[in-house]
């Protein structure tokens, strides 16, 4: 049971990193990214392929995974940088499916690596140094550290002048931002690069934790799980995104101990769907609403 709780918390942490990334993209910037899982997949595949096939050290594979996902975020944003939310939804959904189908068909260096065979034997970091039986705890700590780091980065970015420009884009008026001299396209692309890097880190952690990945892990459904996390937690509040990830993962993974007949498994998705509808109806700001940044009085500024 303890092992399962550790597993659950690790997966929740990895998805927490994903929902922090979406919280930056959607909560702060208003980018409707329905291809979130694509960023995660690129991170996972890049690191897995480089460590398994090319034999890179894990740390270099991880860095490459993060960089590749950031690059994929930029590529996603490039053609649609000037467009509005509805176009973003379609284009990003398509981009994530495209990359998934590419990985479903492309073998990676060996006829039985990649494609629908997936990538197996992905190495775990520092496995030989950790005493038997406590590796799960070690990995949980690693994921927790990464999540805390990502949280810090997202908070820093959102509080910076850069984050202010992102928020002005969310509030709908490209015209106002442009009339104030802001480069809106550049800001959107930067947000996708940072969001991509964070989601990519999630993907890297996922690949090296599970040890095996194939394209079925990266279906569009996963994107909507991440959306559920952000909406439930409170769009625009990054702590909420982490909390939402934990709750959704408890529902998604923790219900397997209820000993219900198999045909109830699909009900988890129904439960999550109903929960989201209730949140949107009765708590549109989510569990932890976005907080206003207060500047106090003028004297507070002088201090």
């Amino acid at each position, binding site marked *: 049971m303890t092992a399962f709780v550790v597993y659950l918390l690790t997966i929740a942490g990895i998805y927490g990193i994903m929902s922090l990334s979406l919280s930056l993209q959607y909560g702060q910037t208003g980018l409707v990214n329905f291809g979130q899982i694509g960023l995660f997949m690129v991170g996972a595949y890049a690191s897995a392929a480089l460590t398994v096939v090319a034999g890179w050290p894990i740390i270099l594979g991880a860095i490459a995974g993060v960089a590749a996902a950031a690059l994929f975020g930029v590529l996603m944003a490039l053609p649609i940088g000037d467009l509005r939310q509805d176009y973003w939804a379609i284009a990003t959904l398509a981009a994530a499916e495209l990359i998934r189908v590419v990985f479903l068909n492309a073998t990676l260096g060996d006829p039985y690596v990649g494609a629908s065979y997936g990538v197996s034997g992905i190495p775990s970091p520092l496995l030989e140094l950790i005493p038997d039986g406590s590796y799960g705890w070690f990995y949980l700590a690693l994921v927790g550290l990464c999540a805390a780091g990502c949280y810090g980065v997202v908070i820093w*970015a959102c509080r910076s002048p850069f984050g202010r420009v992102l928020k002005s884009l969310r509030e709908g008026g490209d015209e*106002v931002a442009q009339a104030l001299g*802001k480069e809106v396209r550049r800001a959107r692309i930067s947000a996708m690069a940072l969001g991509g890097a964070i989601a990519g880190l999630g993907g890297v952690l996922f690949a090296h934790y599970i040890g095996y990945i194939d394209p079925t892990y990266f279906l569009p459904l996963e994107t909507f799980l991440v959306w559920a996390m952000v909406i439930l937690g409170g769009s625009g509040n990054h702590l909420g995104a982490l909390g939402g990830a934990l709750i959704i993962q408890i529902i998604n993974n923790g219900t397997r101990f209820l000993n219900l007949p198999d045909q109830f498994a699909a009900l988890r998705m129904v439960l999550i769907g109903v929960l989201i509808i209730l949140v949107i109806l009765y708590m549109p700001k989510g569990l932890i609403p976005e907080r206003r940044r207060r500047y106090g009085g003028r004297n507070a500024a002088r201090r």
Partner: protein
Amino acid sequence: MLLAVENISKRFGGLVALDNVSLTVRQGSIFGLVGPNGSGKTTLVNLISGFLRPTRGRVLFEGKEIQNRAPDQIARTGLCRTFQITLNPQRMTVMENMLLGATAQYGERIIAAALRPGRVRQQEQQNLQRAWELLEMVHLERHADEYAGSLSGGQKKLLALVQVLMAEPHLILLDEPVAGVNPRLIEDIVKVIVQLREQGHTFLVIEHNMQVVRRMCDEICVLDMGQVLAQGEPEEVLARDDVLRAYISAGGDIAQAGDPDAAPTETTP
């Protein structure tokens, strides 16, 4: 000449929105753009600020051609505008809106923000200082931490005005700065604009309220059906018969010329 519009024409398909319009705005003046609804005033402002491209003609700002530049580029060269309907980010506080207004912020590029945190913080402090000064000027300092969306219509207009000032512009385009504002607040807005001119700021203002136009404009240009009908000092131009006729035939609001109370009023929330 700070701004020169030279023989500008703009067509939308078969519709000629502007036909060979020329005007010049002097440094340190308030230039009024008036005319009945649909006469092309907002189109002209959109052309000058880069949101539209002219079919023909040139726009010179500080001697440089700007008619083919993007709106954000034009704003960064010191030509800033406000909008007829205030479009300010609603779920950002008044202070966040103000800080957004400052141009040339290092911290707006994420890599620069990461590499030079000290410089970003210093700049932020300076901008904050300036923002407080401007908010005090228009008596909005008590609302600094409120969402812009919760301000009254008139306060939103004031916010849009001082937000633009954060960019330290050389020329400010105001699209109907007092439309829909209650008469007492109109006074305040006019006072602020006149006071800013005394400090050397230059304005190009679209305004329907003739009382306001008479009080603050040094020079006006009357547009009618996309053409310049008259140009010159307000009293002189507004007394002309053809100007009056243009307004009356368009069912315009010349009635406001003699009657300040006819200004549309806002319902205070």
